[in-house]
């Protein structure tokens, strides 16, 4: 170990998944205060792994090696990226007297001292309190992913700070941005009304589901499922391992998606390309074949469901005169009718499960709730929950359960093994803490419009009834609206809809003050008036809670390197601000906080491991039960050896979170609370809308954009790391790293586009530049651009375009579907499956930006110039 002998080993949490949880950390080698390398973690031999034993298909387990996404291995570069915010920065155009809001996004910044930064922030908060009598004018955006430390890098502290100002100082409510169920949209707004599962965002529970699938399933449909991209990003090795189990078990994998995505390319036996966001039509035709050939589970329909006759009538065209037969669906979906029939027959004949990671491109588009409901319908028609007929999330989601984990794990470890941050409730909770709130999908509109009305809190874990409750912003007519933004996320324009409008909203003159708190200058951070430098996970100690994995563990993260510049952790930043406002008690020393959290876990209460001993030992990894122990545990929860998932419902025929407690083809709740909804009728139907190829708009914008979760960055994070760019981008003729845009050779030829050409993707919401990646991996008529590329606004001739290729800038916003001022029924996010056109661009027309990095944006950073 000559080269490594002097290296100190530090465990560092996931670089981007955040929310106080991580998967397994990497083993980071540090020498002389420098990160030398990051290595996979190997689960020690004395930790017992699980095994899933099947009757005829062998035994399944996971390797001891744990990897993370490529971004994690690029830590060396990312920590010292040229975009690092090294010092508190003040926008040069901003003064307390004149916000010069138009300069946001283009002004330079100057370095200021921490003292001055806190003076300004506290001054602004006091001014708002004095003038308006509460903190309601402050929109707090603190619900993002980010780094995965338990305490220090959490992005929820803004809510906590303002909540404490209310509780301890009586400063009143703040405007809480509520994070909508972004990656689950369709299941949340739609499938919940079919089968419930309010506590898991509308996706079915995963209890012991692998035992069932590996023993019984003969076919698994990957419905846009991409564990190789999203799964590796979120869950690490587990997500890479699970698809291999399917192969080993001899289960056929059929991928249905507009693209041959990364998992489909690696694992699928058959790819059925489908036009973006037409899955509802495919499912209707599948139902048609089953009804026509009488190959659905009639007894199950009778005992487990309500309202099937309405679906049957709709499928047969008794209600609207249109038979939803395979020829009808073929026109819409682009799938040959013969293939639809073959799929339907295979699905009926073979024990088939359907797999998603979050839900793929179909689940985050306009009216995706109809596709999700239809998916639930067809699963029900084949006896959902029967052996081998399950809904399968590939990638060990740990909270998707009724009572048991997806793979063999002790229930007490599940429920008491890990430290649980109560802060999560602010972001992924049952409802907003502040009665003054705005859904994240309507944040821009809340700034721009006098009043906005909508239904639903959009909170991740809200009960389905909440989707029919009316809310408005501001809560009262004489309220001042939003005057200040507290941005800890830095992800709005790259991950949500119509990012261009969000950037415009940040330049609104009514916004007196915009605070950004972040480690890197990216996306909307440069639209701040004051930016506070946050640390990376390498710069502070913390607890690592390994919950996004199949094995549960906790690690102690030591500080690896000295803080970059004058950065502080997200927690410390809020703590010093809180202290200036007299909130010392609300922010105890971090070690006390971590210790108290640790002492509530089994490691302490059962295994008697002290906090101090844990810090020396550095990790606790919980054993898994043996197969026979697991079989015993399952027995106590009503499962036999090889059953799991929704087996209990298949057996009982009731017990779901729906009004009837059964699967509802016709939703009793929608029928009662919103019976005339065209957008979301009591029976889900195929509903045409303006973002589809047959709409009037498609005459101008004929291509449909689909957008996946990216493979190499994590949503918007880590996009400008050179190693990551080298992997994921296309270098243009001007040597710039362009975001790839997948386009089929036919569509490219029609537009005279060659591989690697710079192309402009544009619609009525703006334009972005990408590199053309010509491929057979995308269905003709669609183009695919992953979301979250780092924004780099430039001019193309005289037009403003984003050279970074951030597709969300021109994705729809829900407001477009409604008259301004009218109530928004479903404040869904629709960032995949919308119209655009694409054209080839000569790079000489591009006037490059000065670059979005510290040196280009910060004019005065020398200590003697500190303002």
């Amino acid at each position, binding site marked *: 170990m000559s080269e490594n002998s002097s290296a100190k080993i530090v465990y560092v949490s996931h670089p981007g998944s955040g929310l106080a949880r991580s998967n397994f950390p990497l083993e980071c080698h540090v020498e002389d205060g420098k990160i030398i*390398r990051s290595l996979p973690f190997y689960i020690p031999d004395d930790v017992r792994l699980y095994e899933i034993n099947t009757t005829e298909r062998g035994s399944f387990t996971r390797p001891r090696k744990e990897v993370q996404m*490529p971004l994690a291995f690029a830590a060396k570069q990312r920590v010292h990226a040229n975009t690092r915010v090294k010092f508190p920065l003040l926008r040069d155009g901003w003064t307390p007297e004149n916000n010069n809001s138009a300069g946001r996004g283009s002004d330079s910044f100057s370095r200021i001292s921490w003292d001055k930064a806190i003076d300004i922030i506290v001054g602004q908060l006091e001014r708002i309190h004095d003038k308006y009598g509460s903190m309601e004018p402050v929109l707090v955006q603190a619900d993002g992913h980010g780094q995965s430390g338990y305490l220090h890098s959490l992005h929820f502290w803004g809510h906590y700070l303002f909540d404490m100002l209310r509780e301890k100082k009586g400063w009143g409510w703040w405007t809480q941005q509520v994070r909508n169920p972004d990656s689950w949209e369709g299941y949340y707004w739609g499938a919940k009304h079919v089968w419930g599962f309010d506590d898991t965002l509308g996706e079915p529970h995963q209890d012991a589901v692998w035992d069932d699938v590996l023993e019984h399933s003969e076919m698994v449909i990957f419905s846009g499922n991409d564990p190789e991209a999203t799964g590796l990003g979120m869950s690490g090795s587990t997500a890479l391992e699970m698809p291999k189990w399917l192969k080993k078990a001899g289960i056929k994998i059929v991928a249905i998606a507009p693209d041959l995505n990364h998992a489909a390319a690696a694992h699928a036996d*058959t790819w*059925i390309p489908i036009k973006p966001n037409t899955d509802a039509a495919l499912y209707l035709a599948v139902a048609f074949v089953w009804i026509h050939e009488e190959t659905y589970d009639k007894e199950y329909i009778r005992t487990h469901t309500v309202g099937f006759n309405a679906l049957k009538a709709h499928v047969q065209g008794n209600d609207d005169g249109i038979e939803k037969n395979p020829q009808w669906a073929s026109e819409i979906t682009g799938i040959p009718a013969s293939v639809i*029939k073959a799929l339907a027959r295979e699905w009926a004949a073979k024990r088939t499960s359907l797999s998603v990671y979050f839900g793929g491109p179909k689940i985050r588009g306009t009216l995706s709730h109809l596709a999700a409901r239809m998916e639930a319908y067809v699963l029900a028609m084949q006896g959902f929950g029967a052996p081998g007929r399950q809904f399968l999330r590939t990638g060990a989601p740990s909270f998707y359960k009724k009572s048991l984990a997806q793979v063999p794990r002790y229930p007490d470890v599940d429920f008491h093994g890990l430290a649980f941050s109560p802060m999560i409730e602010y972001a992924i909770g049952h409802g907003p803490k502040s009665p003054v709130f705005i859904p994240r999908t309507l944040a821009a509109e809340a700034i721009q419009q006098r009043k906005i009305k909508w239904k639903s809190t959009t909170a991740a874990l809200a009960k389905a009834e909440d989707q029919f409750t009316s809310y408005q912003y501001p809560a009262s007519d004489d309220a001042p609206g939003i005057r200040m933004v507290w941005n800890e996320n830095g992800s709005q324009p790259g991950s949500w809809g119509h990012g261009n409008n969000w950037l415009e909203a940040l330049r609104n003159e009514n916004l007196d003050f915009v605070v950004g708190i972040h480690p890197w200058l990216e996306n909307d951070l440069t639209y701040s008036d004051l930016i506070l430098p946050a640390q990376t996970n390498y710069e502070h100690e913390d607890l690592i809670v390994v919950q996004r994995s199949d094995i549960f563990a906790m690690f102690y993260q030591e500080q690896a390197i000295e803080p970059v510049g004058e950065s502080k952790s997200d927690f410390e930043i809020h703590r010093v601000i809180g202290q200036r406002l007299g909130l010392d008690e609300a922010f105890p020393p971090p070690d006390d906080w971590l210790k108290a959290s640790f002492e509530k876990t089994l490691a302490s209460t059962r295994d008697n491991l002290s906090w101090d001993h844990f810090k020396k030992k550095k990790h606790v990894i919980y054993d898994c039960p043996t197969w026979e122990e697991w079989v015993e545990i399952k027995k106590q929860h009503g499962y036999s050896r090889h059953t799991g998932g929704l087996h209990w419902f298949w057996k009982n025929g009731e017990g779901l979170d729906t009004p009837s407690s059964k699967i509802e083809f016709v939703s009793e709740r929608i029928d009662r609370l919103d019976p005339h909804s065209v957008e979301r009728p009591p029976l889900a139907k195929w509903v045409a809308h303006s973002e589809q190829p047959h709409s009037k708009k498609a005459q101008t914008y004929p291509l449909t954009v689909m957008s996946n979760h990216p493979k190499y960055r994590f949503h918007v994070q880590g996009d400008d790391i*050179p190693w990551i760019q*080298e*992997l994921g981008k296309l270098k243009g003729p001007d040597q710039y790293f362009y975001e790839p845009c997948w386009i089929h050779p036919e569509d490219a030829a029609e537009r005279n586009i060659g591989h690697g050409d710079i192309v402009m993707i544009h619609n009525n919401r703006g334009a972005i530049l990408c590199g053309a990646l010509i491929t*057979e991996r995308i269905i003709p008529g669609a183009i695919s651009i992953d979301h979250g590329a780092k924004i780099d606004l430039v001019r193309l001739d005289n037009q403003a375009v984003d050279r970074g290729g951030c597709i969300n800038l021109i994705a729809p916003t829900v407001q477009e579907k409604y008259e301004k001022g009218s109530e928004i029924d479903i404040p869904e996010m629709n960032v995949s499956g919308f119209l655009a056109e694409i054209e080839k661009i000569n790079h000489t027309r591009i006037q490059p930006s000065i670059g979005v990095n510290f040196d280009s944006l910060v004019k005065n950073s020398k200590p003697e110039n500190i303002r």
Partner: protein
Amino acid sequence: MTHRNFMIDVDKCTGCNLCVVACKDEHVDSSYPPWTKPQPEEKHFWIKVGALERGEIPRVRVNFLPTMCQHCEDAPCIIACPEGAIKTRGDGLVWIDGDLCTGCGDCQPACPYDVIYKNDDLNIAQKCTGCAHRLDNGENPRCVDVCPHEAITFDQIEEASGPLETLHPEYGAKPRVFWQGLPKPWITGSLLNIKTDEVIIGASVEVTDLKDGRKSETKSDEFGEFWVTGLKLNNDYSIKISRAGYKDFTATIFLDGDKDIGVIDLPNS
């Protein structure tokens, strides 16, 4: 000491590219004398993962080919180097002595695998060392260490699970990186009875090598698709598709790459 080699199983690689980043993480800004000086921040891929996209929609497959220096026994780069800076270790790993290299660049075009890179800052040529520094410490190369699928291993070739090949043996360099599952041409297509608009399942598909008479057989799957894989490039084949109740389909095909016959109508007999 047992002799070990890199072995790459194409069927196991899913293209995650972790090996590429791990290699950079190991070598950028780190020096491991005498085997290598630091790799520059960008533009070097001592291992790269080629993504070979094959076929036409909807029958598309991607083969990922993690490719590093093939550590050839008759390495053309060694012959091309005028300074004698490229050497072979006792264990067979080929390395460039950064102290002797003058950066003349002669080795780069000599390498048929395109895996030698110029370090402009240090004015030397650089490439995969097989992580010689790690091997000497009893550790696996970084790409092997990080690979989540055991697609890249470093072991005795006798341990391989199947027959091994080398990359482009015709170059005559005698590579010492051994491969399994290297892409071979296929014939694919889908069977349909146009009259009924039904796919034809379970048809027998027989492909005969017209040179040596060897037959490859498969059946059309539940979607009417068939894949006959593992064929020879630039070779003549005949194909016969038959299913009771339908007319046979026969054709002869010169295979100059993957061949998708497309949708084949089998009328009722």
